[in-house]
């Protein structure tokens, strides 16, 4: 990804990329606490020259299995499956105009702009199967709200200052996100900037999660002890009855 960005930007004509666009995030870390119900992230900045702006917020990549159910003796059972090696856990886009009006399909694929441009790196499979499972994966992610269907808009004031909000739902995966901002003119990416965003579990929930995953044996013992204490406490509390 970084390489593709570099190539595309250096191939673009004009001034040096760094000065053309400056972007920042409202926060660089999001903590998922016990009462987390989702949040919004504000991407803002300024551009030096005319152009369209696209903001892409992308979650950590993971290998994902897509399973398809089929009826076996009247019961719906997971049958066929397909592996995609590099699936972003979240993918949200904002742009000044509809993406199709800003960049063509080839450039969207090169820069991974827009859901149809995502490279999910499918494992070896028939092209027809790959397309079916790719579409299914995106559909499920959209239904979960992790690949927002409706793109957000980037509002541009005075032709120089821009801002966009991207909503993150309650069950976003944890990990390192990237908020990439592109300045696009005549279908070419003129400048780009990437800002990291860390999403992690915070508070009591994070401690439980980390405990459960890092020291599983002790967590198991603690879970048993907690249950025994709760049971004994309940027993003592109502003993007189």
């Amino acid at each position, binding site marked *: 990804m970084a390489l593709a960005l570099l190539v595309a930007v250096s191939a673009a004509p004009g001034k040096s990329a760094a000065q053309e666009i400056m972007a920042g995030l409202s926060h660089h870390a999001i903590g*998922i*606490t*016990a*009462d*987390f*119900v989702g949040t919004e992230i504000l991407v803002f900045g300024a551009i030096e020259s005319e152009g369209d702006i696209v903001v892409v917020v992308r979650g950590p990549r*993971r*290998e*994902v*299995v*897509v*399973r*398809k*159910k*089929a*009826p076996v003796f*009247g*019961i*719906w*059972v*997971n049958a066929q*499956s397909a*592996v995609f090696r590099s699936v972003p856990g979240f993918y949200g886009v904002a742009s000044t105009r509809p993406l199709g009006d800003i960049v063509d399909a080839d450039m969207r694929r090169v820069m991974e702009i827009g859901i149809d441009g995502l490279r999910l790196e499918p494992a070896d499979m028939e092209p027809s199967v790959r397309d079916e*499972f790719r579409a*299914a*994966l995106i*559909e*499920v*992610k959209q*239904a979960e709200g992790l690949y927002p269907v409706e793109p957000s808009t980037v509002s541009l004031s005075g032709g120089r200052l821009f801002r966009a909000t991207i909503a993150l739902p*309650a*069950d976003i995966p944890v990990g390192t996100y990237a908020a990439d901002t592109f300045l696009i003119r005549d279908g070419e990416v003129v400048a780009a900037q990437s800002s990291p965003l860390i999403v992690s*579990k915070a508070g009591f*929930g*994070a401690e*439980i*999660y980390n405990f*459960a*995953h890092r020291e*599983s*044996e002790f*967590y*198991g*013992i*603690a*879970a*048993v002890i*907690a*249950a*025994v204490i*709760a*049971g*004994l*406490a*309940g*027993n003592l*509390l*109502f003993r007189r*009855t």
Partner: protein
Amino acid sequence: MFQIYLPIAEMSVDIFLLLGMGGAVGFLSGLFGVGGGFLMTPLLIFIGVPPPVAVGSEVNQVVAASVSGFMAHWRRRQVDFKMGGVLIAGGVLGSIFGVWLFGILRQIGQIDLVISISYVVMLGAIGTLMLVEALRTILRRRSGTNVRRKAHVHHWGHGLPFKMRFRTSRLYISAVLPITLGFVIGILAAIMGVGGGFFLVPAMIYLLGMPVGVVIGTSLFQITFVTATATFLHASSTQTVDVMLAGILTLGAVFGAQFGTRVGAELRGEELRGLLALVVLGVCLTLLWRLVAEPASLYSLSPTGFH
């Protein structure tokens, strides 16, 4: 309104919904003297908790529910510790096997299916038996006849090798029977997140021939240790135990159970048991429907590489 994030299930749920579910199932368990795990796990699946997490967390909650009952029976000296120990030995082996199987099924993407089918079969069987039993009792009471049952029947199983003497139960039987029984219960605990009392209690009475007085206490003794083992194994190998979820359910269940016990003392048994049978069959049919109805989405996603 008061959403709480469950760290292992990785979802937000209304805390009062969980407390209410814990209270309702606790009420039923107090009313009928059942563990309630077999109702809680399907309910958790219905509200969207991933089935593996529902199982891992519920088995943790059953530890709390059964230790409390075990203490009460221990005080009244209604526990056969030797028999319980043999059952636990089988149960620990069963839960090791069950958790291992659980991990493999999860890896090949069939764990949700196996959990659902196990529940449909088990709830269907228990619900039907309970309903028949309740109807028979009601009919018998109306016709006024009274049938006497023999206390303890000898059968081929008692003659197997490795005989052991169980003084508290006044039995001299082969250890193969309780170990096998414990093993089956261990598998049920690991795969379904239940204590298995609904299966263990009748098996102890009819299969082992134990006196009724020590059966409940001994079964709770075994369930406490086997569910504790299953909790530990799930926590360390499948990471599906959500202590937050189990804790909230336990809190609701402790109060529900007290209320249920009091109500149960004043109400008549058979009609209530018939009602519980209908609830069990209702849950069974709902699960069955989810298996046979064409799903809203044919596709599902899961990360690879469970350990």
